C-alpha cells in the first residue's frame, strides 16, 4: 500500500527523524536564517524545493545509473562508489540555478538569505537526504517516487523546525537575555531543548 508507506515516510521524516532536531543536519542555515520568520519561511521553501528536486534527480541517477550493474566491454562495473561525487555536483548545480532564479524574481528574499543561499550547496541536510535515500533498504536505495516524497518530507521537517525556531527567536529578541548568552548561545540552548522535546516522538515510526 504505497499511500500508507508514503505516510510513514512523511511522518518519519517530519516528526520522528526530523532532519534538524533528530539527525542534527543542516544546523548552519537553521541557526543562520532563523532570526526572522519571513526569511525562515523563504529559506525553508528554497531548501524544500532543492531537497525535492535533488532527491528526485539523485534517486533517478542512483537507481538507473550508479547502483545498476553496467556491462561495458565485457566488464561489469558498479559505479555506486561515485555517488557522493555525483550527488554533490547535482546539488550544487541545482542551488546555482535556484540562486539565479531567486535573484531575478525575488531580490528581497535573495538579499535576506544572503550567504545562506549558496550555502544550501553545503547544507548537509540535502546531501544527507540523498544519501539516506541511497542507503535505504540495505544500500539498494528507495524507489524514485518514495525518494522524492522523502526529500519533500525532509524539507517540510526542516521547514517545521525552522518555523518553530524562527518564532521562538523572534520572542527571544524581546527577552532580556543576559549578555553572555545573547545570540547564538541562547539559540543553541533553545535548539537543544527543542530537539529534546522532539525525542518524545521517537519510535513513533519504526
Amino acid at each position, binding site marked *: 500500500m504505497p499511500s500508507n508507506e508514503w505516510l510513514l515516510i512523511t511522518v518519519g521524516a517530519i516528526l520522528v527523524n526530523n532532519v534538524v532536531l533528530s539527525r542534527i543536519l543542516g544546523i548552519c542555515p537553521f541557526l543562520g536564517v532563523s532570526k526572522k520568520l519571513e526569511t525562515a519561511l523563504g529559506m525553508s521553501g528554497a531548501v524544500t524545493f532543492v531537497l525535492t528536486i535533488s532527491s528526485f534527480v539523485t534517486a533517478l541517477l542512483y537507481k538507473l545509473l550508479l547502483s545498476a550493474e553496467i556491462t561495458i566491454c565485457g*566488464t561489469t562495473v558498479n559505479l555506486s562508489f561515485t555517488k557522493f561525487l555525483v550527488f554533490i*555536483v547535482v546539488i550544487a548545480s541545482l542551488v*546555482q540555478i535556484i540562486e539565479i*532564479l531567486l*535573484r531575478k524574481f525575488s531580490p528581497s528574499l535573495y538579499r535576506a538569505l544572503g550567504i545562506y543561499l549558496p550555502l544550501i550547496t553545503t547544507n548537509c541536510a540535502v546531501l544527507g537526504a540523498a544519501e539516506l535515500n541511497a542507503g535505504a533498504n540495505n544500500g539498494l536505495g528507495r524507489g524514485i517516487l518514495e525518494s522524492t516524497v522523502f526529500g519533500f518530507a525532509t524539507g517540510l521537517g526542516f521547514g517545521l523546525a525552522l518555523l518553530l525556531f524562527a518564532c521562538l527567536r523572534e520572542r527571544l529578541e524581546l527577552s532580556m537575555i543576559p549578555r553572555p548568552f545573547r545570540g547564538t548561545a541562547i539559540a543553541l540552548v533553545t535548539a537543544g531543548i527543542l530537539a529534546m522535546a522532539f525525542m518524545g516522538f521517537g519510535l513513533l515510526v519504526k
Partner: protein
Amino acid sequence: MSTTFLAAVCVVGIIGLILGCLIAFTAKKFDVEADPKVEKVRELLPGANCGGCGFAGCADLADAIVNRGISPSRCTVISAAALKNLSAFLGVEAEEKEKMTAVVFCGGSLSRAARKAQYNGIMDCRSANVAGGGGKACAYGCIGYGCCARACPFGAIEMRDGLAVVHPEVCRGCGKCVTVCPRNLIRLVPASVKIHVYCSSADKPAARRKVCSAACISCGKCIRADGQGRVEKQENGTVRINCENPPDISLAETAGCPTGALQTEETHRAIQPISPKETQK
C-alpha cells in the same frame, strides 16, 4: 579496473557537463545586473549601522553613494583614513571634515538640580518625558535616566550623578544621542571647542536659579569678560559660545561665572559619579 575508472569519469563528466550547460543557460536567461561597487563601498564603510548618516544602515548608504552620488563624508563616524580609502576607491576628492563631538548642554547633576517630586516609572528619559518629566524640577534640563547613553553605539556617554556627560575622545559625532534626547539638550559641535555654557533653560533667569544651582542666569558676565562677541546671548535667553570663533578655555576662570554654568568640557564631566541606587531615589 580501468574500465571502472573510465566509466566513472565518463559518467560524472557527462552529468557535470549537462548540469553546467543548464546553469549557463539559466544564468544567461535570467541574468540580473549587480553592482559589485556597492558591495565594495559597503566594506569600506565602518559597518556600525548607526544610522547617523540618515540612511537605514551602511548598506543603504553604500547604495546611495554609488548610485545617487551622495558624498562619502555623509558618514559621520568614518575615520579619516577610511574616508581617504573610500574616496580613493570612488575617485573623488576626500573632503576635509572637522571632527564633531556631542555636547550635553546641561550642568544639572543630581546634587545641583532641585527635585520637584519623586518620579516612579520607567527609568528612561523619553518615557519619563510623557509622564511628568522625571524627578528634577527644571523643565529644560537633563532628565538623567540615560536615554542617550543607551543610544550611543560607541559608549561615549556616561551617566554621572544623574547627568549625561560625553567623553569626546570616544565620541565620533554620529548624532544618535541628539535625536533621542527628549529635551533636545545635545548638539554636535566642533571637537576643538572645549568650553561651553552648560545650560539650556528658556525659563526666566530667576526661575532657573530656583531649580538649579548650576543654571546660567544670563548675567552676561562672560559676555563682558570676553568682550569680542565670542560668547553670545541667544533669543530665548540662553548664552552660547560661538563655535565658529571660540574663546580660549581660560575664559572659564577669568569670566567668574557665578553659577559655574560656563565651564570647560573637562570640568563638566568631572562630576563624581554616584551609585545608581542613589540615582533612583
